[in-house]
């Protein structure tokens, strides 16, 4: 919870205010990942709180416990999906999609009275899986370190006189200020005693 929400902190009066917004640093794939993260939270909460309803709708009456566990899994993958480490979250969502599809395929058995519902759900999960795959690939690509060129900076010493000639240059006119000293030896510290 941002401290700014709980402390009623507000912008100071004279500070500049936005007149017109510019383009964001968020990419399209960042936004897609975020949407999928929130989708995970919505679905996860539903699975946790209404597993019976879902089970009945899909003809999976014996699998309430499993559906509840899937709810917990959705919430767990929502956390990294909504974080800076989106690829981790999206990868765990994709693994989850596979589990969902496996479970739903058991509801596609011929004897299931709710087979039509299960087929719709199956198609929906396939759609979401495709979105997850796209988001994963794009987030990886747009945040990869590989973007751009690989350069070498071994000619950038920042020391105009060269590293060797610069060593200790500042010691001529700079001493560690007393409040920053950590070094010393017992000889400096013990007052000389009269012979």
């Amino acid at each position, binding site marked *: 919870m941002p401290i700014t929400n709980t402390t009623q902190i507000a912008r100071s009066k004279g500070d500049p205010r936005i007149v017109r917004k510019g383009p964001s640093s968020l990419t399209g794939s960042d936004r897609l990942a975020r949407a999928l993260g929130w989708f995970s939270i919505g679905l996860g909460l539903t699975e946790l709180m209404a597993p019976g309803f879902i089970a009945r709708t899909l003809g999976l009456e014996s699998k309430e416990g499993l559906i509840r566990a899937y709810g917990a899994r959705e919430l767990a993958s929502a956390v990294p999906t909504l974080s800076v480490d989106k690829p981790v979250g999206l990868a765990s969502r994709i693994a989850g999609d596979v589990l969902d599809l496996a479970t739903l395929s058991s509801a596609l058995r011929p004897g299931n009275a709710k087979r039509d519902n299960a087929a719709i759900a199956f198609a929906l999960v396939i759609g979401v899986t495709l979105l997850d795959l796209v988001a994963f690939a794009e987030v990886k690509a747009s945040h990869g370190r590989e*973007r751009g060129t*690989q350069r070498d900076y071994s000619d950038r010493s920042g020391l*105009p006189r060269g590293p060797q000639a610069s060593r200790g*240059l500042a010691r001529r006119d700079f001493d560690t200020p007393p409040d920053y000293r950590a070094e010393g030896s017992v000889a400096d510290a013990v007052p000389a005693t009269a012979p």
Partner: protein
Amino acid sequence: MRALVWHGKEDIRCDSVTDPQIEDDRDAIIKITSCAICGSDLHLFHNLIPAMLPGDIMGHESMGEVVEVGAAAKAKLKKGDRVVIPFTIQCGECEQCQRGNFSLCQRTNRKGNLGDKAFGHRTAGLFGYTHLTGGYPGGQAEYLRVPFADTTHIKVPDGIDDEKLLFLSDILPTGWQAAVQADIQPGDTVAVWGCGPVGQMTIRSAILLGAEQIIAIDHLPERLSMAAAAGAVTINFETESVIERLNELTGGEGPHKCIDAVGSESHVNMGQPDTLLDRAKQMVMLENDRPHVLREMIYACRPGGVISIIGVYTGLADKIPMGQSMNKGLTFRMAQAHVPRWTDDLLRRIEDDQIDPSFVITHKVDLSDGPEMYRTFRDKADSCIKVMLKP
């Protein structure tokens, strides 16, 4: 004017905003000629310090020309002056300022009550760095209102490029303070974790202060190559064992001085399993920071050595080996840089060709490319080390 505005996690935009105005007699308005993105901005980009408001202007490394001066600042500043603005805002009069602890100024945090609550006692106002430190609009913009402007500026001469001067605002004095905090002595082996812009400045400072051997640790080849350019021995923590190599390079004794220029966002990887756990805890708000580097420094450091922390930590960090620290008699020093304490001296070293901080700039772009550059810098793409922005 145009400014880079925080809208939420990973959401920074180049917006049009209203121009800043003089609000107090000690204010000045600066027309920004150059500014930069800092590793600290990434913590805000990632919303690790949850005290930002959508609409906050980013940026705390900027310089430019004075265009308006409040009555009380006129003795020290005039229209047309060329100034670098330190990221710390200081009154110059309080007890902390008198001691040179400018990042701890007691008067400039205008949201001091929030600072008191979060930290126990307030610290200085900072530009563009959350409402815990005053919520002041930052300098990734065309204009900047500088509060306490009579004491919050570094006057710089004409005839030297912005590129060489801009980093007096933060990373040069920050790297310098990291080295000074370690009380570097000739003959010391100094290990520096992190070869970002701050680590790079720390390495140069350690050389100037006479360190005999500097060991630079990172995993990005281009950053390690820049560290090696200044004569550092490098360790790539993804392909080598940091502890083994440090022992090898110090005859088994460990470095005298260990400097953390990484901070809260230690790289998460399988080879360092504690970082996986920290990341997981961070996601569910059980921990704020990933203190892998702290743990490694405490373990590697020679007994009686100094741990200098300049990388930013934001809140609670778990599993800090206090037992090792205590039994090894380590000294800890840390702070946000007390920028103006060092800048006169460092400006002189720039003029004297002892250091040229422009070496660290890898990207120079228009302010409107800022949002894109936040991503490039964060992803360490395109061999990006330091981004300079031109409004």
